[in-house]
C-alpha cells in the first residue's frame, strides 16, 4: 500500500514536471532582457521583472480582462440554460426523432468555422451587433453542440431507476431534472461549464471576427495577439503578457476543480 502510494506520487510528480516544462520556459523568458531572448540561453543572465510593468503600460489589460470575464461568464451561463435541458431530453426522455436530432446536433460541430463565418457575420451585421461581444454570447442561448453532446453522454451514465423513482413520486420532468438529475450529474456539468468558460477565455477567432473594429470590446486573446504582432521581436514582453493572461484562469480552475470532488461526495448515494 505504502509502495503504491510512493509510486503513484513519483509518477505524478515526473509527469507534472514534464507538463510544467514549457510554462517554466515561458516564465524564464519573461524575465530576460530583450536581446537575450534571441539566444539559446534558458536562464536569464539578468532579471527584468519590469517586463511585466511594460505590459500594463502598453495595453489596457484591465479593460481586456473585464471583457474576457464578461464573455466567458455570459457564454457559460447561457450555454447551461439551453444545453442542460436539451441534453436531458436527448438522454432521458423517449420521443420520435430523438436520434435524428442528436445526429444533427453532432453535425453542427462538423461545419468548419471558416465556412459558417460569412453568412453568420452578415446576419449579425444586419442586427447592428458587430463590434460587440453579443454575437458570441447570444447564440449560446440556443445551445452549444459540443456541450449538449458532452452533457448528454454524462447524463447517460446516471441509472434510469433514480428518475423513475422520482416520477413515481409525482415529479414532473422539469422537477426531476432540477431536483434529481442536476445534483447527481455535478462533475459532468462542472466539466462542461469549465470547458465552455476556458474555450471562451482563450477564443481568438470569434473576438477577432466580431470586435476587431471596436477596441473597447477587445478580449485578452485579441490584445495578446495584436501585442505579439506589434512587438514581434520582444519575446520577453510577449511571454510576460501570455503568462499574465493565464493567471486568472489558472486560479479559477484551481478552485473550480473542487466541484468535481464535491460531486463525488454528493453522488456517494448513487449505485
Amino acid at each position, binding site marked *: 500500500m505504502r509502495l503504491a502510494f510512493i509510486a*503513484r*506520487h513519483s*509518477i*505524478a510528480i515526473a509527469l*507534472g514536471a*514534464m*507538463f*510544467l*516544462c514549457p*510554462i517554466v*520556459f*515561458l516564465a524564464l523568458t519573461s524575465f530576460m532582457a530583450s536581446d537575450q531572448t534571441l539566444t*539559446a540561453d534558458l536562464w536569464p543572465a539578468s532579471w527584468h521583472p519590469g517586463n511585466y510593468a511594460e505590459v500594463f503600460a502598453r495595453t489596457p489589460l484591465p479593460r481586456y480582462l473585464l471583457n474576457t470575464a464578461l464573455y466567458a461568464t455570459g457564454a457559460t451561463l447561457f450555454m447551461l440554460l*439551453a*444545453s442542460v435541458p*436539451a441534453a436531458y*431530453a436527448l438522454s432521458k426522455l423517449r*420521443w420520435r426523432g430523438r436520434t435524428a436530432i442528436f445526429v444533427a446536433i*453532432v*453535425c*453542427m*460541430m*462538423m*461545419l*468548419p468555422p*471558416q*465556412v459558417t463565418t*460569412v453568412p*453568420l457575420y452578415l446576419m449579425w451585421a444586419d442586427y447592428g451587433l458587430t463590434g460587440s461581444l453579443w454575437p458570441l454570447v447570444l*447564440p449560446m442561448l440556443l445551445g452549444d453542440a*459540443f456541450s449538449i*453532446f*458532452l452533457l448528454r*453522454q*454524462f447524463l*447517460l*451514465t446516471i441509472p434510469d431507476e433514480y428518475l423513475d423513482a422520482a416520477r413515481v413520486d409525482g415529479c*414532473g*420532468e*422539469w422537477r426531476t431534472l432540477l431536483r434529481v438529475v442536476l445534483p447527481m450529474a455535478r*462533475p*459532468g456539468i462542472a*466539466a462542461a461549464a469549465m*470547458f465552455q468558460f*476556458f474555450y471562451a477565455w*482563450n477564443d*481568438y477567432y470569434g473576438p477577432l471576427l466580431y470586435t476587431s473594429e471596436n477596441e473597447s470590446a477587445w478580449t485578452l486573446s485579441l490584445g*495578446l*495577439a495584436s501585442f*505579439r*504582432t506589434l512587438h*514581434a521581436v520582444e519575446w520577453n514582453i510577449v511571454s510576460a503578457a501570455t503568462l499574465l493572461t*493565464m493567471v486568472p*484562469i*489558472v486560479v479559477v*480552475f484551481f478552485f473550480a*476543480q473542487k466541484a*468535481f*470532488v464535491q460531486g463525488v461526495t454528493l453522488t456517494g448515494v448513487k*449505485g
Partner: protein
Amino acid sequence: MTTLAQRRRRDRLTVLSFMAPVLLGLLVFLVYPLVASVYFSFTTFDLVNAPRWVGLRNWEHLLQDPNVRTAAANTAWLVVVLVPARMLGALATGMLLARFKRGAGLYRTLFYLPALAPPVAATLAFVFLFKPGTGPVNTLLAQIGVQGPLWFNSPEWAKPSLVLLGLWGVGDLMIIFLAALLDVPKEQYEAASLDGANVAHQFRYVTLPNIAPVLLFAAVTGVIQTLQYFTQAAVAASVASGQATTGGGISSTFGYPEGSTFTYPLWLYVVGFRYGALGYANTLAVVLFVVAAAVTVVMLRRFRSFL
C-alpha cells in the same frame, strides 16, 4: 383520468419545452449555413464580386487538385494517430489522478496548465523546447548520449512532433475522463473485488462500461477537431521555419517542412482567404463536412447502445 392521446400530447409539449431553443439553434447555425455552403460550392465569388453560378466546375477542379491529396493524406494520418494517442494519454492520466485523495487539486492544475495556455502560446513554447540545435530537449538527450531528431524541422518527425504537442495538452480530455471516472459507483468496484476480480477485470467490467458514453464523446469530437486541425500546424510550421508568426506572411510557411504539416483546413484557408476563391473554399468545406459526417455516423452506429 387523462386519456392516452392527452398524455401523448402533453409528452410532446414536455419534450418541446426542453428542446425548443436548440431546435431553433439547429435552423440558424446548421441548416442555414449548410444550405448556403452547398449553394456556394457551385459558384465562384470573392468578397468583392457577387456569387456566379458555375455548375460542377469547382467539383471537377477538386478531383484534380494535388494539394487536396497531400492535405487529405496528412489530415488522415493525424486522425489515425493523434486521436487514439490523446485518448490513451487522457485515460491514463485521468485514472492516475482519480486514485489520489490528497494533493489531487495541485496535480490536476499542473496537468491542465498546457491546455489552459492559449494554443498559439503553447505551440510557440513547445516548438522552442524542441529546437533541433539548441533546444532543451535535444540538449538533454545529448547528455544521455542520444542524438535527438530535427523534430518540427524534419519531414519525418514533424507530424509525430505535433502528436507530442497534442499529448502535452491532453489535460482538457483528462478533465472529462476524470469527471466520468469519479462518477463510477464505488459499490460496483467493491462488489467486483468481492467476486475476486483483479485490476484488469475491474477495468474491463466496471470502469469501461461506466465511462463508455464519455469515451464515445471523446472519439467523435476528437475526430471532428482533428479534421479541423489548423492553429497548431500553422504556428508550428511558421516558428520552425523561422518566418513571421503572424500577419499575411504566415500562410507562406504552411506545411513546413516539405508539406509534412500541410493539413486540409490550411488548404481551405489559403484557397478562401489568400486566393479569395470563396466558391472553391466552400466546395472544400462541403467535402470536409461530408467526410466528418460519414466517419461520425459509422462511429455512432458501431456504438449504437449509447444512442
